[in-house]
């Protein structure tokens, strides 16, 4: 059995108007897990519980072998939230000093400086004077400079231009070269996850619909375009959801190879993560 960086077992969180879970999710060491889901699906709620910000109402969470409430577990955790960091009047240098005081001997000031240099971040400019991309890079430098075992990123690449996103994705891939390092990243930019993630976890209306190997997922799901008569020839469990238009039917199908064999003349393209989300969401709003 592969080593786990984190594991959520039957995790439940209840709010008056929303319930997350029960969620079972494992983050294997040495991998990047992409967490996708619509707005309000519960991604940030899940990440906050995993990182020890909030406690679950039910279930258990193991973070690097301990509980998220354990300080020693959090010492090996690097986190980048979309909009939660130091006060904007602080400079990069001051952020580094504060984090050095928090992490103590684990903090690698030279590594922090090298990240600032790598990201071309000015040390003495206040955060409020930095662009969103630069602030995100500063958060990332702070999350990496104590050499965490697990990096948790909540929408860390959203709002960034493709060049910066490319740089960050390269950095993430470098980071997991060490097989003890893992990343759990939520993102609405599914193209980033298709590029970097090893597996995809899809959270939908507070429930984990699947957590599958990305390549298997890309192999398994397809977008079928055909007529109604062809569609009727398929086994019911193959078709996740169908959209009917004046031009025919467009369906998300599972078991692409079997569908291609059953309907050799139909147009069957590999489904992207966006497509999968779109069709699952469409199925449930019907």
């Amino acid at each position: 059995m592969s080593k786990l960086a984190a594991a959520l077992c039957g995790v439940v969180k209840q709010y008056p108007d929303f319930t997350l879970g029960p969620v079972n999710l494992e983050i294997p060491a040495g991998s990047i897990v992409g967490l996708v889901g619509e707005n309000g699906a519960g991604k940030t709620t899940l990440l906050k519980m995993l990182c020890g910000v909030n406690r679950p109402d039910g279930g258990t969470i193991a973070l690097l072998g301990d509980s998220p409430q354990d300080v020693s577990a959090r010492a090996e955790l690097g986190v980048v939230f979309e909009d939660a960091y130091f006060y904007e009047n602080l400079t990069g240098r001051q952020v580094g000093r504060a984090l050095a005081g928090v992490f103590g001997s684990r903090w690698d000031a030279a590594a922090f400086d090298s990240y600032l240099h790598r990201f071309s971040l000015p040390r003495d400019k206040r955060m409020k004077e930095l662009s969103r991309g630069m602030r995100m890079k500063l958060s990332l430098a702070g999350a990496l400079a104590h050499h965490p075992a697990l990096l948790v990123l909540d929408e860390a690449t959203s709002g960034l231009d493709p060049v910066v996103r490319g740089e960050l994705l390269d950095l993430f891939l470098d980071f997991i070269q060490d097989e003890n390092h893992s990343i759990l990243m939520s993102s609405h930019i599914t193209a980033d996850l298709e590029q970097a993630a090893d597996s995809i976890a899809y959270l939908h209306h507070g429930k984990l619909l699947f957590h599958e190997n990305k390549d298997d997922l890309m192999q398994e799901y397809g977008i079928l375009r055909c007529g109604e008569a062809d569609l009727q020839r398929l086994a019911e469990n193959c078709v996740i959801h169908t959209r009917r238009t004046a031009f025919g039917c467009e369906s998300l199908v599972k078991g692409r190879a079997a569908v291609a064999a059953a309907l050799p003349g139909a147009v069957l393209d590999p489904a992207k993560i966006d497509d999968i989300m779109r069709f699952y969401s469409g199925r449930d709003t019907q």
Partner: protein
Amino acid sequence: MKGLLYKDFISIVSSYKKNASLVLVIYTVCAVAGDIPALLYAIIFLMGMYAVSTLSFDEYSHWDMYGHTLPVTPRQAVAAKYLLGLGFMGTGTLLAMLLLTVTSAFRGQLASSVTAEHLAGSLSALATVLLYYAIAFPLSFKMGATKARTAVLGVMCALAMVCFLAWRFAQNTQTGAVVGQLFAGMSDRQGVLLLFGVFAVSLMIYIVSWQISVGIYDRKEF
């Protein structure tokens, strides 16, 4: 915790540097020109306010959500705020005493009795301000810094009302006379002891307030 203290200290310095300098000058000038040296005791309150305002900075930047992912316990996170408050109020007290001495010297009134009066005044002011922030901190942790300002005012008004009623009660009964006699018959040494006793009680309440805030912060969801 060292890192948290540094974060808050540097946030205050970067945000209030000019404000604090200006206030010091204005208060000193007003204290001298208006011959109201007691105005300088307000510096202690102001310094405490700077420390509490770091909770507003935290709310603005959603710090607590990020801070909970760091290897810091809720006890340490809250202790950093209380220690910062204590440090700032202590510095305010020293500043107030220094400025009172300087302004007294400026008016040619520098004598040992005046200095002792400043010391007693500063210590009383510090004890009062400690009590104020012992109420302000837990309410700010519970309700958020903005809502807590109104709530603290409400609590202070209620306390003032209780004091007023107690004073009226004392006036109408023998209690007032008895208390008056007690104070009148007090030696300097007893007076100093009483002052330090009041300060010690304030400090104890401040520590109890820290424990209450730890409980609030630990249960809080972000």
